[in-house]
């Protein structure tokens, strides 16, 4: 890689565009983008302008948003629009969507006919099917023949990205059917496309959540998913490789949510985004303030504690075990919603989860009872620790499962139900139960 980088730098310094283009031709766009990222800002700009326009556009598609934004700022409108025209419409919309309004308008104006398609895409939010789709697909009218479809494929040339399906639409652009290139190869050239197409193709609405779209594509094992409006008119397609990224991002989001970590703004491994450091530190400091509630709660039971100081020994055990059980149920709920295994009736799974909490609580409570009784030689203390643990683990399972489900039901982002929020709640529930139980038991004892 270093020799590749060295050669690139040398060609750039000595101004050898042909050698540079030959070198770029050897590389896949994603690798070319990797190489590009190792250059300094001035070299990047020089390279972008020296490459063939389609290669340069390919690199631009692969670059991280910030780098791309920086580069575009340094290009004049003519250079920028030339590059954007060469990009896939979905990528072009992503790039344009990040630009300031007046520049966006100027560039769209320069792009002419292509601008219409991009403007459609710009209408949809990033986390919807419409925001992910591209208008580069191959569609043929339903009265055509196989040979016409092949002709159409030849005509769209390199524009449609990785075409695998050919969609069949009627005179009103309504999606009627689909066939794959494989079907096309096997079919006789004069067969009507209507005969080789599969009818009732699976499609999603542009406002559909992108996670939902990913699940649909996965469920039916498709390579691309058509997007249609309410009248069934075809607007675009979402390709499987885009959804692969969605699935991975959502997975990361879920894992970070369990840990209460703020959403990732830059790449996980990037440099040192200070705003992000501030966010993470701020979140933890806020969490500390939230946990004062538990401290105040305990202070209300000061006299109970004074009577039996040994109660404090078990604070970490009671709070942590309840927190663990709550977080486990949260993990089941969060991933269950993401992958769809909770199915039609998540509440049934919730009941199962609470019963699991009760079972876990019975065993953990029993073990804690034996430990506390034997260690401190105090049966009452054992009963309090064991009893409180059993009850709080049952409740913790309920909290971990039910809170995200409720949030989802009332359409609040379930991300609010993060791991730390759940542990803060289970801390208070478990410690409260523990100290109330202790006060009661101590009150009836001599």
């Amino acid at each position, binding site marked *: 890689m270093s020799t590749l980088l060295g050669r690139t730098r040398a060609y750039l310094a000595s101004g050898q565009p042909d050698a540079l283009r030959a070198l770029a031709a050897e590389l896949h766009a994603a690798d070319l983008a990797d190489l590009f990222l190792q250059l300094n800002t001035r070299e990047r700009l020089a390279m972008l302008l020296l490459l063939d326009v389609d290669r340069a556009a390919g690199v631009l598609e692969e670059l991280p948003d910030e780098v791309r934004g920086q580069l575009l700022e340094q290009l004049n409108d003519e250079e920028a629009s030339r590059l954007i025209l060469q990009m896939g419409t979905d990528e072009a919309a992503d790039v344009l969507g990040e630009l300031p309004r007046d520049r966006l308008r100027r560039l769209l104006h320069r792009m002419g006919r292509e601008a219409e398609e991009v403007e459609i895409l710009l209408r949809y939010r990033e986390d919807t099917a419409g925001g992910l789709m591209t208008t580069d697909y191959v569609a043929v009218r339903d009265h055509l023949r196989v040979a016409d479809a092949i002709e159409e*494929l030849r005509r769209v040339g390199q524009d449609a990205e990785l075409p*695998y399906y050919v969609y069949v639409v009627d005179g009103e652009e309504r999606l009627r059917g689909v066939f794959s290139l494989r079907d096309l190869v096997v079919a006789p050239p004069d067969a009507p496309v209507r005969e080789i197409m599969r009818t009732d193709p699976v499609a999603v609405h542009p406002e559909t959540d992108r996670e939902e779209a990913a699940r649909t594509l996965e469920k039916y094992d498709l390579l691309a998913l058509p997007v249609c409006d309410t009248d069934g008119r075809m607007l675009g397609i979402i390709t499987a490789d885009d959804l692969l990224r969605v699935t991975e991002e959502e997975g990361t989001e879920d894992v970070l949510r369990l*840990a209460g970590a703020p959403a990732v703004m830059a790449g996980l491994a990037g440099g040192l985004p200070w705003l992000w450091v501030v966010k993470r530190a701020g979140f933890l400091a806020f969490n500390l303030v939230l946990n004062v509630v*538990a401290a105040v709660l*305990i202070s209300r039971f000061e006299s109970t504690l004074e009577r039996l100081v040994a*109660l404090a*020994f078990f604070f*970490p055990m009671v709070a942590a075990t309840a927190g663990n059980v709550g977080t*486990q149920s949260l993990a089941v709920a969060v991933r269950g919603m993401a992958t769809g295994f909770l199915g039609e009736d998540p509440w049934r799974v919730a009941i199962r989860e609470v019963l699991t909490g009760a079972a876990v609580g019975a065993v953990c409570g029993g073990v804690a009872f034996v430990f506390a009784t034997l260690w401190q030689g105090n049966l009452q203390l054992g009963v309090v620790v064991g009893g409180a643990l059993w009850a709080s683990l049952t409740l913790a399972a309920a909290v971990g499962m039910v809170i995200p489900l409720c949030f989802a039901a009332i359409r609040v982002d379930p991300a609010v139900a993060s791991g730390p929020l759940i542990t803060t709640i289970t*801390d208070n529930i478990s410690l409260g139960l523990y100290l109330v139980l202790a006060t009661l038991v101590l009150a009836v004892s001599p």
Partner: protein
Amino acid sequence: MSPLVDRLRQLVRDPTRAREALRGRHPADVAEALRTLPDAEARQVLEVLGPQGAEVMAYLPPERQRALLQEAPPSLQAQILAGMSTDDAADLLGTLRPEEAGALLDRMAPAEAEDVRRLLRYGPQTAGGRMTPEFVAVRQDQSVAEALAELRRLAPSAETVYYVYVVDHEGRLQGVVGLRDLIVASPEARLAAVMSSRVISVQAEDDQETVARLFEKYGLLALPVVDREGRLVGVVTVDDVLNVVEEEATEDAYRLAGLFEAVETERSPWRRALRRLPWLLGLMGLEAAAAQVVGRFEHALQALVALAFFIPMLNDQAGNMGTQCVAFAVRAIATGEVDRRSYRAYALREAVVGLASALTSAVVAAAIGWVWWQDARLSLALSLTVFVTMNVAALLGYLIPLGLTLLRRDPALASGPLITSFMDFATVTVYFTVAVHLLGLGG
């Protein structure tokens, strides 16, 4: 109950009519309806569905597939396995005990059984284990017309043809042609002229996460798999990879929460509990050690019972810091953003985050102590504890997953609860030691 389920039930009583109604339904939908039926009924439905049943089977979750197949009569077993694609059949047989799988393989057609056996040789989480051997390969000296003819001959069995692979006389991968390019190319052209030799491939032994990362990076629909000699042995398709990415994320989330076994498949709460208990009980052992530590400072607690108020707050703080760092490290490693080369920069950045967070929280902790108790020494004790334990938690939170990766183990083994419980122990030790010294509560 959905109408589709009723249709499936009806299928057993009146096959012809119900089969008519099911025609055109996507096997994924039929599978979804089938999931709600008890095993015995589901088996009857699969039997009546015939070859369509095998297709439906592939959309069921692996555990259900296994349960349905194991108890099925031999004729149905053979019917299902024959109808499934080779990679699906291998995935299913791979979940069985070797002797069971062997018996089932003997019932399959010898050629198909051989293909499945070959796939079974690879680990289930490798490229080889995820690939299908059904692909279309042509030699580079053949023409486009010959390639299309070959495609027509093979297409009915090769269900996933997006690319045609070009190989040399030894079967070594030389290039790739997209199906579209093949269709629009002139029929007399040699493949060597239309193919792209910039073909990305993986080795059969490569880990599935490597495979997923390549798909993502290059936006692929299919990835050829080669053996050590560079010979093409199979193809991994994007739909399989989507499942891999989802499974890996779920596994990470579960492990982070201290769940080490798939739980969603268990229905009985007792059995679900049994799977979680060993881990929870082990962590309680750590908490018992923390209890012993607090027990050592009984005299200090008796002197100032208010010390106990802050235990959960301090514990929580260190636990959250550690869990955050574990989560970032686990996903950064899983998505390939951090690897064996770039871990130093990552560790440095996490250290800065740890330090900044510990400092901020230490100031807040001091303020809490002061506002509530108006005692400078208690404030200082809280603040110092927060600062020390959060730094330790951050350090462990990223060092343990990175260390596990360097040792080639799954970084997610360093789960949130493990680090939380360990930090509970460490936190009470630091807290009471510091408090006893600063507040002069020692004996």
